[in-house]
């Protein structure tokens, strides 16, 4: 079916009517370019969102104590209470849907709370269980994370953030085994961590010092207080479920009115994440609607200009018909021209769009931006090309039909 000569004839006609062809093609070119840019930007936004949340358990919730707002069982409202160590085993037993449960301590505000020899800095101090690393994952550059023995023996060990290590020990130095003074007490460095996620609880992971939960509680006189509970749900269970059960148990344990909505604070990452997800889907759908619309408009443009062109070419078509061109040849020529034009313009738009995206991607990778790796997938490119092909055929159909109706005699009639 491939007829080189036919394509030469089509190419020749396109080439020798440059301004007409360029004008015809521009709409499609622009449509494709815009589509690629928008899809790329959309994926950059999505990548950015994903990398932000990456390494952070999306099936997690966080619970903390606040003042009560309702009187209950003889207690007046406005009472301060706190989550306590004793609550943890109760929660673990009472809520079987919990996958990981990690009590968290924050502490040690104040300037230069971490010191090593003549170097010091102000950092976030956190007391964690090993299980917390399952919720907010860290990459260990040196050493290890806090383990169960640290917790059980209340060892004076710490995992320091990458930035902390840089400030206290200098760059590219392995500080494992050395001691640092945290709020006046020496701790041995057992690891250097870099948080994977950009969502960090209690300050940036790079600028944090993590102590074993039990050590921190005892060393800094915190009694049996827990500042925060982080929990994840087992697969298949909605976080909302464990969040409610945790609240129920805590309320019962601490004599809080079951109807008191503000006594226990908390947030549900799953809900936030789902919102993010829907936002992403919404953006993607919008992009495709707008992009396809632009492409469609481009196709209409092609069709329109081809129509004008057919009118303009009435005489040429008439001559061709008089010389023996069958209506089918003419239709084939018009549609082929339309397809070639849309495809060339579309591919040009695609390539320019992809080029621009990779350029932007290069610039973005230098900076710490919420947009990351703007690009379109191969599948998207193929799908858009197929859409283009269809548009090309449809765009050629109307003018081709018009050309069909031109009788040679009418076309070449003398003025």
């Amino acid at each position, binding site marked *: 079916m491939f007829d080189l*000569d036919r394509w*030469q*004839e089509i190419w*020749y*006609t396109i080439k*020798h*009517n440059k301004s007409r062809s360029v004008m015809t093609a521009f709409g499609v070119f622009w449509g494709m370019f815009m589509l690629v840019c928008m899809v790329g930007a959309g994926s950059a936004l999505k990548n950015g969102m994903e990398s932000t949340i990456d390494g952070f358990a999306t099936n997690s919730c966080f619970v903390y104590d606040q003042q009560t707002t309702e009187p209950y069982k003889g207690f007046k409202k406005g009472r301060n209470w706190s989550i306590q160590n004793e609550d943890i085993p109760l929660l673990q037993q009472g809520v079987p849907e919990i996958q990981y449960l990690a009590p968290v301590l924050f502490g040690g505000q104040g300037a230069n709370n971490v010191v090593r020899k003549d170097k010091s800095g102000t950092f976030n101090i956190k007391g964690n269980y090993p299980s917390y690393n399952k919720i907010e994952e860290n990459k260990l550059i040196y050493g290890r994370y806090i383990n169960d023995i640290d917790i059980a023996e209340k060892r004076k060990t710490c995992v320091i953030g990458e930035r902390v290590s840089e400030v206290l020990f200098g760059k590219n130095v392995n500080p494992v085994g050395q001691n640092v003074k945290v709020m006046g007490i020496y701790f041995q460095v057992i690891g250097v961590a870099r948080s994977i996620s950009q969502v960090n609880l209690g300050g940036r992971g790079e600028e944090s010092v993590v102590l074993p939960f039990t050590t921190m509680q005892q060393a800094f006189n915190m009694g049996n207080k827990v500042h925060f509970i982080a929990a994840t749900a087992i697969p298949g269970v909605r976080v909302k479920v464990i969040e409610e059960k945790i609240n129920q148990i805590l309320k019962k344990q601490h004599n809080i009115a079951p109807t008191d909505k503000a006594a226990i604070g908390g947030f549900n990452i799953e809900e936030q994440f789902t919102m993010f997800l829907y936002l992403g889907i919404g953006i993607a759908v919008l992009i495709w609607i707008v992009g396809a619309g632009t492409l469609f408009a481009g196709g209409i443009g092609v069709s329109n200009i081809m129509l004008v062109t057919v009118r303009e070419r009435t*005489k*040429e078509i*008439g*001559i*061709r*018909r*008089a*010389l*023996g*061109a*069958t*209506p*089918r*040849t003419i239709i084939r020529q018009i549609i082929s021209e339309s397809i070639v034009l849309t495809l060339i313009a579309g591919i040009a738009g695609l390539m320019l769009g992809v080029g621009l995206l990779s350029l932007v991607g290069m610039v973005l990778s230098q900076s710490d931006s919420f947009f990351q790796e703007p690009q379109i997938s191969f599948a998207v490119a193929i799908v858009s090309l197929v859409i283009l092909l269809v548009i090309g055929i449809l765009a050629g159909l109307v003018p081709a039909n018009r050309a069909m109706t031109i*009788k*040679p*005699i009418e076309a*070449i009639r*003398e*003025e």
Partner: protein
Amino acid sequence: MITLRDVNKTYYTEATSLHVLKGIDLHIEQGDYVSIMGASGSGKSTLLNILGILDNYDTGDYYLNNKLIKDLSETQAAAYRNEMIGFVFQSFNLINFKNAMENVALPLYYKNISRKKRNAIALEYLDRMGLKDWAYHLPNEMSGGQKQRVAIARAIISQPKILLADEPTGALDSQTTEEVMQLLGELNQTGITTIIVTHEKAVADETRKVIHIKDGLIQNIQHN
């Protein structure tokens, strides 16, 4: 070669109808050299269009090379035109973005002859017209006489049985008219049936038969 029997043609508009050809009977032998004369509106162009299968007729019969030309599909009509008929027009009707050679070669394109081959043949025909040096020029770079010679080359490249010329000299001065008519005469000598529509007596006088048409009827046929 050409036989018309009681051919009628009426043009209809919304309100009126115009009976242009009122029963034409005509016989033209192979190799004849014929001109058709008549005032404007006499129906001579319509007759030529019917002869050229560019237009259809209402009643009667038209035999071309013993084939009945009636109710043809567009595809069939196109094939017959390509095979049997060469056209020459008053305003040349060259495709302005194609050069002389490509214009001449166009009928062969529709015969599925390869580009290389048809361009070679086109050059040959242009050479016969004395236009070899103009092969790569666009129509608007050529004079009227040159353009008409390109058009004639295009008309005969598919070696048609008949050559139909609609006012071929209408846009030319007397000098070039002379040249073009000489060319057409020479072509007729090679055996192509040639039919020229004209209103110039000088042109008609060069043909062997002059068919006078008036009000859609053949008035008389004058033999020169």
